[in-house]
């Protein structure tokens, strides 16, 4: 009896000691993380119900901001454009990244060079990239329309200066920028598929196409899931690219949610209302991630 108590007390002391040591390791990072990430997230949900410009204090206005939101045309435009971008950017980047990864996973000469090339856009400064792309897209003098003229398209699209073509232009640049990054993730995923599986499939007489669907696709499921989640969040928060490439225009043709938050908050000083829009963005990302997790769980079960 006495030994049990002593043992329990010793275990208790060990847990206590470990907790102190553990937290001492976390603390330097956790303080910054808590103050600059967790606290703002909590404040966000309070601010969304207030009316506040930089001066004075926040005033509780209840659900007034949300009522304003459901009648806000610009908000719907931003939401619609964000979904437009997301719906095209995700599959395009996913397929391009996967194709590149499959190509680079072979024994071809110069594979290392191509991998470097594919990753380069991702590490380029967005300011420089957006400027250069704007020049490339220039309808009359730009090289892109010049190339299109070579293949017979005499009146190339207006790209970033046309309300119809500005979003496709943004999607192209977004895909160009990110596919190398996701390609690396797919490449790492491909390495985890055991070579024996391919051998077995080959013995069974499966051709390359069948092997892709029967071995590669199931083997890549966790990777694909991760890539989809990251791409979804990345698409919903798209901002700096648009700010620099089109600034939301022409008109509101490329205005997206993040930019609308920025506009309301930092330009028009309506911090309360900007927070309300932020809550919507927050909720969308949260829900989409949860749904994707549930789907993934059901599929792998």
């Amino acid at each position, binding site marked *: 009896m006495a030994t049990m108590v002593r043992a329990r007390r010793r275990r208790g002391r060990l847990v206590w000691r470990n907790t102190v040591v553990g937290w001492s390791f976390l603390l330097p990072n956790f303080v*910054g993380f808590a103050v600059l*990430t967790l606290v703002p997230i909590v404040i966000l949900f309070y601010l969304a119900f207030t009316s506040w410009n930089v001066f004075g204090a926040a005033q509780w206005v209840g659900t007034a901001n949300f009522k304003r939101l459901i009648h806000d045309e610009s908000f719907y435009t931003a939401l619609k454009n964000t979904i437009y971008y997301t719906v095209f950017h995700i599959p395009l980047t996913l397929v391009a990244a996967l194709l590149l990864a499959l190509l*680079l996973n072979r024994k071809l000469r110069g594979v290392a060079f191509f991998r470097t090339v594919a990753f380069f856009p991702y590490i380029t400064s967005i300011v420089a990239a957006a400027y250069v792309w704007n020049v490339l897209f220039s309808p009359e003098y730009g090289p892109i329309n010049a190339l299109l003229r070579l293949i017979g398209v005499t009146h190339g699209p207006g790209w970033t200066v046309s309300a119809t073509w500005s979003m496709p232009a943004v999607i192209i640049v977004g895909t160009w920028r990110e596919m190398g990054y996701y390609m690396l993730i797919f490449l790492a995923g491909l390495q985890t598929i055991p070579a024996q599986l391919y051998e077995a499939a080959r013995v069974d007489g499966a051709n390359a196409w069948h092997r892709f669907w029967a071995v590669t696709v199931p083997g890549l499921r966790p990777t694909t899931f991760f890539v989809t989640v990251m791409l979804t969040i990345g698409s919903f928060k798209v901002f700096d690219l648009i700010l620099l490439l089109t600034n939301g225009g022409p008109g509101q043709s490329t205005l997206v949610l993040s930019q609308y938050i920025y506009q309301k908050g930092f330009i028009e000083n309506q911090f309360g209302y900007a927070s309300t829009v932020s809550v919507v963005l927050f909720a969308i990302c949260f829900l989409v991630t949860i749904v994707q997790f549930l789907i993934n769980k059901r599929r792998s079960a």
Partner: protein
Amino acid sequence: MDLTLDTARRVEDTPVPADTPRRQRPGRPVLRALGYLVLVLAAAALLLPFYWMVISSLKTNNDVFTAPIKWVPDSIVWRNYVDIWQKSDMTTWLKNTMILSVAVTALQVFTGSFAAYGFAKVRFPGRDALFLLYVGTIALPWQSYMIPQFILMSHLRLTNSLWSIIALQAFGALGVFLMKQYYESIPEELSEAARIDGMTEYGIYRSVMLPLSVPALASLTLLTFVNTWNDYLGPLIYLRSPDLRTIQLGLNTFISQYNAEYALIMTGSVLSVLPIAVIFLLGQRYFVEGIATTGLKG
């Protein structure tokens, strides 16, 4: 799926072909040629903007836009690379960006690896829930809480100073996540043996874990450095005075100020990308590893 950097490293060293036939079959050379063709086309498309940027910076301003387009300049003009230093505050921008990148990287690597040790090697109640909270915020767009964060920063009187960007970037969850993945791949027996020898946890972190995790530390260093160097939104919101501008902000103001000086703008763009390109080429292996690690344990 339990992947560590060891598996990830293979991506870089040898592209182990999971799907290469042991013997060449008829029709294979055609496929191979097709593969090359696709790769070359993809590479050309990916590199077009860089090519355009570099050749434009080596032209006179009037030659940037010509009809038909000159894909190969007649003569190379280096003048722009001299003029840019006089016409812009490039030196200030580069200095600010350098200070920020170094400070943020140092803090992120230290606090990240330190916290990761706590998460990976010390067992205490609530640890896993807390880690989930960390990972959860990676999945949240920063844009959704930038407003309250800004308000908080202005209360702390950090806005419009380089400190704001340091505070903003240095405590990210990415470093903790990346280092934790790596520490978990280091066998528990090593730290257990050190513990029996009477080493404290801090001692184990310093003399066992840190030396063993050099590749992961390199990945984290490079990724953080590049992210801070390229960050545009943080500086845009927090740094208002001209003498605080980073290279990204500076380049953008330069673009709007000298909007007809195409060649000079391209020169500035090349200069803003160059340091990162060099760093990337030197440490490519670690980039690939770092990204593979973050990607595989989603």
